[in-house]
């Protein structure tokens, strides 16, 4: 099977001051692949996927996303970000706009679509995340789970090639995690390429093609979920899994 590689990272290093956040990261992600990145806090998971759309600049190595080489070439990075959707832990919806406007502003101002086209697109994806009736409300009027689903729809409105999820359920109340994960599972079923940083191992088992385990800024293990959950090759991954699965 020769699928296109969408993300190619070679020998990526990233520093915050003296602190080395990423060390010698090598990773390939193919079109349609669902990758779940896990690992303890501070292991560099978020930093890594933030590098994938240029929210962080890597300091060494090469990173190619959707055939665009990431360095500080601003117009190209902006082009790239249209093809790479991102969902944040804190939702980051635009509080001064209605839900519909949140979804329309990217297509209208960045993709330069007309307002009718943008609205059709926005309503389509609101339907997809199952909250079409909230279109005219403001983000603050929605529950956390609904807000995160809006954030997913907002990213989808740019019709991206890849979706990045940075701990999308970590700031949600437990009863709202399910509704967000359901939307993500459905998205995975459409064949979207997804890179998900999460601690939701049930989700990982259900949708992941590849598990990436990180610790202290390094990728420790890359393996299919069957192997990862039953017989991880690294001792550190085993300890991590014991800690989060035994409760």
């Amino acid at each position, binding site marked *: 099977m020769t699928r296109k590689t969408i993300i190619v990272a070679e020998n990526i290093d990233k520093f915050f001051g003296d602190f080395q956040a990423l060390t010698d990261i090598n990773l390939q992600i193919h079109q349609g692949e669902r990758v779940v990145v896990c690992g303890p806090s501070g292991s560099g998971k978020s930093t890594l996927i933030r590098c994938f*759309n*240029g*929210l962080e600049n890597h300091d060494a190595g090469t990173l190619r996303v959707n055939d665009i080489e990431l360095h500080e070439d*601003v117009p190209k990075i*902006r*082009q790239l*970000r*249209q093809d*790479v*959707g*991102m969902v*944040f832990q*804190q939702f*980051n*919806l*635009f*509080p*001064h706009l209605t839900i519909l406007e949140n979804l329309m*502003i*990217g297509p209208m*101002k*960045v*993709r330069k679509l007309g307002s009718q086209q943008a609205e059709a697109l926005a309503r389509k994806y609101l339907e997809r995340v199952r909250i079409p009736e909230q279109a005219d409300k403001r983000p*603050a009027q929605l529950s956390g789970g609904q807000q995160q689903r809006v*954030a997913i729809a*907002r*990213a989808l409105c*740019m019709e991206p090639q890849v979706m990045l999820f940075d701990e999308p359920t970590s700031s949600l109340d437990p009863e709202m995690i399910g509704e967000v994960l359901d939307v993500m599972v459905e998205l995975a079923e459409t064949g979207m390429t997804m890179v998900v940083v999460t601690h939701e191992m049930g989700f990982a088992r259900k949708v992941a093609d590849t598990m990436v385990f990180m610790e202290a800024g390094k990728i420790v293990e890359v393996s299919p979920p069957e192997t990862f959950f039953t017989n991880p090759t690294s001792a550190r991954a085993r300890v991590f899994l014991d800690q989060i699965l035994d409760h």
Partner: protein
Amino acid sequence: MPTARPMSKKKMMNTLPLGVGLYLIIVGGIVWLAYSGAQQMGYNWQWYQIPKYIYTFTDDGFQLGEILKGLWVTIVLSVVSFTFATVLGLGIALLRLSGLVVGKGVAIGYLEFIRNIPLLVLLYLFYYVLGPVFGFDRWSAAVLTLGVFHSALISEIFRAGINSVDKGQWEAAASIGMSRGQAYRYIILPQSVRFMLPPLFGEFVHLIKSSAIVSVIAVAELTTIGRNIISDTYMSFEIWFTIAAVYLALTLVLSFGVSALERRFQP
């Protein structure tokens, strides 16, 4: 943001008569002191002369008196200067937030320079030094002085407003491919307006008051008019009381406008 617990309405109504009484006693005392002081020095009050400087009503119909004309000039001067100050202030704030070392340096240098020169000296600089060099008239010198002086504080208001928007908003805007300019325009500035409007209007009121200083270069605004009338009539007590009352009325009306605006901008 209320920090202390506000009084209940009932409690406020109970203390209201006492407050009003106390207020009247204090104000009455001050008026009486001024009046008796004036009597002692044999001041000849001529309040009956004042109305004609405010307005006249003759066969030609209603006509603005000199004081109201001066008030109009003060308003126009303030609005023009404030507009200029706002544009300049926004530019300085954006320069300071640009992340460019040079931009930041220029902005900080400008702020420190303006903030550490007295307004009067700045006015003299514009009128007596830069005026002849670049050919400003009094009016332009006045607008430039007030605009430049107030742009310093206004730029800090903009900066604080922009910084009060969560960093995640920038990231979200960037993640859907917006440029920095687009993020400012569609995402950041609309959200910071709410934080900026009250202090901006406060600064406008401040500017109206500091506009009185341009009377030293004889721009025909309210304070200059007051000085001119006094030099003709020697009614300094009546005129200065009147001028003060006119400024007070103008700024109070604006302050009420501001509180109404603030309520409207509550999310």
